[in-house]
């Protein structure tokens, strides 16, 4: 049964990208365990506003686990201690009376901090722009059923396509590597016949962009896979390696 709990939150506060940050600890009383983690932060912010203080900036939008906007590192886990969910789906029933919860932004050279818990994930945009697409213009397309796709292939592609681009993989990675993110997109499109013609080009340019942006080298630790809210498998990373090597060896 959900009850009301009293907690402390230790939150990273940083005024701007170049400013020095620090932790601030706040007390919260009578938080319902039925409320979501972000609703708890809403209550904190309401409290801060009422006290004439600056509320904590954090990214959030859909609050139903699909937009990938929320991005908090909670008690040593990206998206908190509960599995297979985003921060917005985390509920306070994962915490107990008297807990101190440490909340930090994603930390990676690829994701500089904008303010407090908000980070800049433009790097993901740049990687996507480097080749995360099938080069078709609008219109002049053959019928959708013209190319049958085996169901298991479509399902595998869908598994990879479920990525929400939140960046938890990078946040979890000791190496600050973005391989799972890149692998998910490369895999989705490499598995489908529509993506095949430019699979080689895509793998090369997305990896090159990822490297250029300063993400780390993958050492197959697998923390990304564990923390991924959408269960993207690191098998996709093997597929990316394969696609990349195939592409390079053909050159």
């Amino acid at each position: 049964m959900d009850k009301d709990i009293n907690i402390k939150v230790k939150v990273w506060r940083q005024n701007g990208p170049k400013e020095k940050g620090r932790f601030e600890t706040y007390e919260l009383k009578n938080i319902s365990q039925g409320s979501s983690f972000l609703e708890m932060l809403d209550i904190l912010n309401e409290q801060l506003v009422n006290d004439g203080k600056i509320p904590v900036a954090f990214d959030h939008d859909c609050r139903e686990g699909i937009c990938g906007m929320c991005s908090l590192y909670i008690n040593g886990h990206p998206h908190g201690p509960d599995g297979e969910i985003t921060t917005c789906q985390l509920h306070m029933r994962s915490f107990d009376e008297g807990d101190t919860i440490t909340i930090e932004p994603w930390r990676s050279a690829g994701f500089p901090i904008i303010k407090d818990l908000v980070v800049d994930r433009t790097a993901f945009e740049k990687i996507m722009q480097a080749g995360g697409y099938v080069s078709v213009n609008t219109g002049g397309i053959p019928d959708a059923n013209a190319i049958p796709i085996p169901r298991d292939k479509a399902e595998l592609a869908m598994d990879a396509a479920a990525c929400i681009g939140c960046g938890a993989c990078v946040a979890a990675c000791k190496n600050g590597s973005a391989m799972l993110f890149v692998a998910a997109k490369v895999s989705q499109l490499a598995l489908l016949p529509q993506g095949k013609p430019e699979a080689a080009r895509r793998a090369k340019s997305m990896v090159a962009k990822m490297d250029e942006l300063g993400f780390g080298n993958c050492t197959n630790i697998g923390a990304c896979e564990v923390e991924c809210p959408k269960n993207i498998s690191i098998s996709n990373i093997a597929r990316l390696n394969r696609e990349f090597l195939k592409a390079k060896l053909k050159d």
Partner: protein
Amino acid sequence: MKKIDSKVPKGPLAEKWTNYKNSQKLVNPANKRRLDVIVVGTGLAGASAAATLGELGFNVLNFCIQDSPRRAHSIAAQGGINAAKNYPNDGDSVYRLFYDTIKGGDYRAREANVYRLAEVSNSIIDQCVAQGVPFAREYGGLLANRSFGGSQVSRTFYARGQTGQQLLLGAYSALCRAINRKQVKLYTRYEMLDLVMIDGRARGIIARNLVTGKLERFAAHAVVIATGGYGNAFFLSTNAMTSNGSAAWQCYKKGAWFGNPCMAQIHPTCIPVHGEFQSKLTLMSESLRNDGRIWVPKKMEDAEAIRAGKLKPTQIKEEDRDYYLERRYPAFGNLVPRDVASRAAKERCDAGYGVEPSGLGVYLDFSEAIERLGKEVVEERYGNLFQMYEKIVDHNPYETPMMIYPAIHYTMGGLWVDYELMTNIPGLFAIGEANFSDHGANRLGASALMQGLADGYFILPYTIQNYLADQISVKRFSTDLPEFEQAEKELSDRVNRLMSIQGKHSVDSIHKKLGHVMWELVGMTRDEKGLKEAIVKLKEVKEDFWTNVRIPGKRDDFNMELEKALRLADFIEIGELMAHDALDREESCGGHFRIEHQTEEGDTLRHDDKFAYVSIWEYRGEDKAPVMYKETLEYEFVVREQRNYKS
């Protein structure tokens, strides 16, 4: 009265769009490069439009409120997208999709627009498949379909419970490609706050850089609004936290007409409200109604015992359950349109049969489906939704029925547009949920994705050329022009005024008050007394906001409270217009239900003789009542009937 020209082409219904395309003006490639188009929003409509216009050769500036186009709330659409492919061979056709959509909208949409929508629906599926959208497939490798509310055929294409996500990622990938090819310039974490007009035409916008807090000016030959709906006027809705009506509202204040503002859709299957701290409502896909059965207890004492926690739903015997949708609407059963399902739930709960501790909930039960199909099949179809439900409510829907209740989901109303998707302001276009759209008084499930992509991929890229063809000799605008200067100054003054209030209440606390008034008085059911009361109360909320709001921090900084305040200021005014429009429309149709106007069985009662029109509202200035015009909806091809989902 002003002349309202919907610009619907002449000719037979099925030929209108073809005829239009054959005779419209086009812009040659060399000239396209010289024409700038601003697209505000990166959801299905915005991203698809920006990408397509970029591919065509226009110079596109695309604005995104989040850090990535992939975050737009289209991503949250779960169930699917309609198309008249007739792959299952169950009798579907373009006409039938058109007819179902018109009927679902309670005959308050434009025939020609809806027919065009149905016509291009098939191309959308082709386009998405080519982009690599992993739609569900049969073992034979061909695309799978499922059925949705308001239709008797299976025409809905889907990608698990994440169809919106996959379609948006498709459009987003097209946009990424266009950005890479320098056809589109993307501005992320920017919010449009004002429209700039030069000589009566839309020529640019003022947007706030949400990271620096600075106001910036952007000029173009045309402006496209694709910023979604205004459902967050209700505070609690299924919309995302940043979903807002401000871009559209600021256009309205610059003279753009607002169509059917009172038409808001209430989605029947959302997770019920569970406390004061609730920040938003979570939708459970309509597709669940394919296999889930909706019921409440037949006996009042059972309902009371359940609410008190003394009885479990699984303990209620089959004969003591009231499957009220199946009882009232035998032909469509649990798959009646959303407005019908929502009101039926409210009717049962108001009568005292609700099941949540609050009394505001009904059951959506899968036990029969699990028995019939097996747990694996149910898990395959709805696993992610069940998981989502369990994370929020902490109940396992495989074992105990889900509890659901209606919530605000979508707004059919929006900026008025003609057949070309242009508002009454030349050069200002509105697409997707932001326009008053093709859904009339009620949108059918899986039609929003269809409309957003139809507008963005296949309609606007044509119709905008008919306007831009006349603009080829117009040089690029400088943002130093006095019109930009003045627009920025006015906006800046408004921001300063907000910052200087320094009252006692947070933005959210006032937003909750607004939401309460809206939900109670302008919500699922409305009546004259309540609407009049709402108008008075909304004035009070407005007063409260402009005297008591407290916005901490600086204006030229990353300031989320200021962002919210700017949006709330507009939501209050949108709420007022919704109430006025709802009061004015003395009939019930689709999502607009006036208690005074219902059939004996409690269904919507339209008055086609008096209200077969789109209400168009024009802004006349602060403290002046807006004026309403009527665009009469002439039905040439369809006969209006009482919607019947019973037989």
